[in-house]
């Protein structure tokens, strides 16, 4: 078996319900990610994707099961993960650069050093010249790149992206997807992406994990064996269409 960066092992979680009893959400979710691999998780809406994400990120404790990073138990721990939520959550009282440096500052780095480290990524992230701008001055795509920069600069073993482009219009979203594919090729990231967009999952991923409806478990795993780096032209290729079809069929299976 190949090396494993992240191992999600038989996660179970049920929410207590006000009327009494519990609402099972995760019913034994298991999958793994190799170092440098890009894996997407898709599933029907309301299936528990976000819950799974919070559990992996260490924000929520599972009832049973483990999360391992590099073979070590990381269940309920946040340090191995750099987390990017759906909303960009750039704070209006900080400049873009200070927003990008926030995580480093929280980790105890001096403001000056944190800013220098974040500043170095502004070029590759297409944000050069906007260091001292306020978040509200940025376009939707730029805000999302700044939020990703804030996540990436933490230099943690695994990147967790929760529908990062969900709020963007479709043109900007396509731009962001091709940009992410480009920038990913230059850094050695291990990524877990949660999305409801099949095309996004197929375009960006090495492998796609399809979840069933709630209470959820992994229904299928599909390998996207398209060569990298990919470009927009690949989307129209027959192989890409075949992958999309396979994912759609897996999602639709009752």
């Amino acid at each position: 078996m190949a090396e494993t960066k992240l191992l999600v092992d038989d996660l179970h979680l049920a929410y207590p319900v006000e009327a009494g009893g519990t609402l099972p959400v995760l019913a034994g979710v298991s999958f793994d990610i190799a170092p440098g691999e890009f894996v997407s998780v898709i599933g029907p809406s309301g299936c528990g994707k976000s819950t799974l994400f919070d559990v992996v990120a260490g924000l929520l404790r599972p009832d049973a099961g483990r999360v391992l990073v590099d073979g070590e138990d990381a269940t309920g721990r946040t340090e191995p993960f750099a987390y990017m939520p759906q909303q960009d959550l750039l704070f209006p009282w900080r400049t873009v650069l200070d927003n990008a440096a926030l995580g480093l500052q929280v980790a105890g780095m001096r403001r000056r050093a944190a800013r220098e480290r974040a500043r170095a990524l502004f070029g590759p992230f297409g944000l050069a010249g906007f260091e001292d701008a306020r978040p509200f001055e940025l376009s939707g795509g730029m805000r999302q790149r700044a939020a990703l920069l804030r996540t990436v600069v933490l230099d943690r073993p695994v990147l967790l992206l929760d529908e990062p482009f969900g709020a963007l219009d479709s043109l900007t979203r396509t731009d962001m997807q091709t940009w992410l594919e480009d920038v990913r090729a230059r850094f050695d990231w291990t990524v877990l992406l949660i999305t409801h967009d099949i095309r996004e999952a197929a375009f960006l991923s090495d492998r796609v994990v399809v979840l069933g409806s709630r209470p959820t478990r992994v229904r299928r795993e599909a390998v996207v064996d398209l060569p990298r780096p990919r470009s927009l032209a690949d989307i129209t290729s027959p192989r890409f269409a075949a992958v999309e079809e396979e994912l759609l069929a897996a999602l639709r299976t009752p």
Partner: protein
Amino acid sequence: MAPSLVLVGLGLAVWQWYVAANDVRPQVLPSPLRVVEQGWAFRAQIWANTVPTLQVTAVGFAVSLALAWALAVAVDFSPWLRRALTPLLVASQTLPIIAIAPLLIIWFGFGLFPKVVVIALVTFFPVAVGLIEGFAATERQASNLLRSMGASRWKEFRYVRLPGAMPYFFTALRIGITYAVTGAIFAEYVGAQAGLGIFMNLQKNSFRTDLVLAAVVVTALLSVALFALTYLVQRLVIPWYGAERRVTRG
């Protein structure tokens, strides 16, 4: 601003005309011109009473702010305190100040302390509630983000909850400061050695309605000035707030 000046001018003109046309005695209702004229004649005395009122307002409001901040921060960190203190906060607002203030004078004399208590009772609530709600308005996603970065509760407060609450704080501050001036006047009205409140009371007793009204005008100007001052402070403390709103509106 301009429309309200027109309205005030119109009101004053009607008032002036009414007093002159009906030959109303100044003890009952002085004309606006007489109020200004007598106010100016007694400017030294009015000023001598304005300064103590300003001092009382400043000290009282400062104490109130300090208490409101301490309590709001404590409540933000402790759900237990939130449950324990919220009913007490509301109860403090139901105290009839008009009945309590004279008692405070009996208990604590004519000094600063009873006035500070009155101002604190009147202004504490809006400021504390504004802050508590401001802290609590932090999005859960933002808290999660900070937690994922490894932030302690204190760091989450410092980096997100505190700055996020500042717009709420300034709104509460504006409500509080107008109450503070009124509270100070009221506390002095009941009993004081000097101040606009006691000045009004004494002038009323000697039927100098014109001087009472002159003091009222000064009080109003004072409130408006302090109100405007909060915008200035806000601009200095949270410049990002105005800038963002100007852009997203335009």
